[in-house]
């Protein structure tokens, strides 16, 4: 589970703990994603729902959001959907807003604080230039920033208890209906970013090492004087 997702799971468990209710963990992935669902259950989720899909294209957020929307429809009534600010692999941040569109929910993104009172959710959203306080009526969808909390490490007992919590697995073909979007985005290829760095390391006294460093930077021509 990426750390971004852990923040979302942690926040949902905290919200459950401060009021009452249940947390359902939903993911789309290969069948080995069950392990990740278990980790989330160990953190405090109550049940899991895995949409098994063979190699979804990580850039095809529209299809992922659609499958999640279908899974949520099947999983039952809910008040709030939480997700990460982005995935740790492609970090596009699209699934959240797309999912909110599919489910016709208000979307509060890039949130660093969540409060719920009387069926109204109030969030602090961090944008590049400002922090905005937003409100919406439940049900709603929120994407959380990693600053929002420090995810807990489940105790060994919680890890063992997670094995007993139910996880439903559904093949993605079973969820696809007439509303499914066509696959419009594909990943054509991936190339490793070539980063050849000199990796010269200086060890020794601060005086000696800083002298060597300044000399090296001078010879690189990056020092103005």
């Amino acid at each position: 589970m990426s750390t971004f997702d852990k923040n979302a799971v942690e926040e949902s468990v905290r919200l459950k703990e401060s009021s009452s209710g249940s947390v359902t963990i939903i993911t789309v992935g290969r069948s080995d994603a069950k392990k990740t669902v278990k980790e989330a259950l160990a953190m405090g989720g109550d049940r899991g729902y895995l949409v098994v899909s063979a190699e979804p294209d990580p850039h095809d957020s529209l299809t992922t959001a659609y499958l999640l929307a279908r899974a949520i429809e099947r999983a039952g009534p809910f008040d709030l959907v939480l997700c990460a600010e982005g995935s740790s692999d492609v970090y596009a941040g699209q699934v959240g807003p797309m999912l909110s569109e599919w489910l016709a929910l208000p979307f509060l993104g890039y949130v660093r604080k969540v409060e719920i009172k009387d069926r109204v959710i109030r969030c602090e959203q961090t944008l590049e230039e400002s922090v905005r306080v937003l409100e919406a009526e439940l049900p709603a969808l929120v994407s959380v920033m990693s600053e929002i909390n420090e995810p807990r490490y489940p105790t060994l007992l919680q890890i063992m208890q997670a094995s007993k919590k139910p996880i439903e697995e559904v093949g993605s073909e079973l969820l696809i209906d007439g509303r499914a979007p066509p696959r419009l985005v594909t990943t054509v290829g991936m190339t490793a970013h070539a980063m050849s760095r000199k990796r010269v390391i200086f060890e020794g006294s601060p005086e000696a090492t800083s002298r060597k460093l300044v000399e090296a930077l001078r010879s690189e021509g990056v020092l103005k004087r």
Partner: protein
Amino acid sequence: MPLFKPEHRQLLKMLHPAREEEVSDVLSGLAAFMEEKISPLSPKFDSLAEKITSARKSLLENGICLIPYPSRYGGLELPFSAYTTAIELAGAADASVALSVAIHNTVADGIFLFGNEAQKKTYLPGIISGKKLASFSLTEPASGSDAKAVRTKARRVGMEYVLNGTKMFITNAGEADLYFVLGATEKGPSSFIVEKSAPGLEFGEDLPKLGMRGSRTSELRLTDCRISAENLVGREGEGFEQVKTMLNSSRIVMGALCVGVAQVAYEKAVTYSKERKAFGGRISDFQLTREKVADMVTGISAARLLCLYASRLKEMGLEFSSEASQAKVFATETSVRVCDQVIQIFGGLGYTSEDVHRHWRDARLLTIGEGTSEVLRMLIASRELAKSL
């Protein structure tokens, strides 16, 4: 490198195929916790820049000691080999924290096996959940491995026992809430649970040590120390047998701890040897380095297996004291040898970096503590010679 490796997974699968997933989930969760919360602090514990107190507490609260105990005490009811492996991983994360926790759990073991219902109810949940810290107080200035010769006296006076004596080199002394103390009564060596608040109980200064510096080691001084007679564990005179049993399990665990220390040191040496260039090549290209790598990994594998073998015998309810001693002797001595070679591979950098030599310094305790190698060899040999082959 992750602490919980495919090798561990494989071995545990061989030992307990039906419980493989459970055991792996728990140990990889534990490993992830220690990688984040314990390993990064290791250099600070060694340099005394930080105490292990809060890291140890969070490790105990995470549940490491619950692994082998029954669920009625809040335990996970997992096989003993899972606990052995957990301490190996803890040893790789930080040897001092692992030592402190392992010693603490030896006391839990003692109370679990030999305590009466009242004692178990009073003390066990607190200890295994990590709310209370325990200390195993056996060694004395005049008797280390020679437990029968215990000099601390315990005199029955009405509803109390009065203890007099000195215990030496006690891990967790001063920090622990409970002390498992061996004292001599009229009927022979006996075990007592002494709470920190008992009158007449004092602790010495933390002793400076070669290694295992994060773990507190000092004297216990019992001067007319009065405890309730209800704190006698079992019956008078049973202490020696009790302690022997406790040490059997604890020796396996100490061996595993050393395997962890050796593993982490070994990995550092391998990484270094692949980067470090000399004489126009990497030092990992040289035959003599390769010989060291082969010998180190072979020793670590063999040590790990001996510890798991002894663990499995214990799980099956079979006699395992000789195998436990073999595991401890072999694993601790191998670990010292491996850590020594690791310093050699690092060369001058090894001699001058705490990050390298601390592993040897940490491992070096354990050919001495919990039964010296010499004493354990005597035990192993006398058992062998008593067999009719």
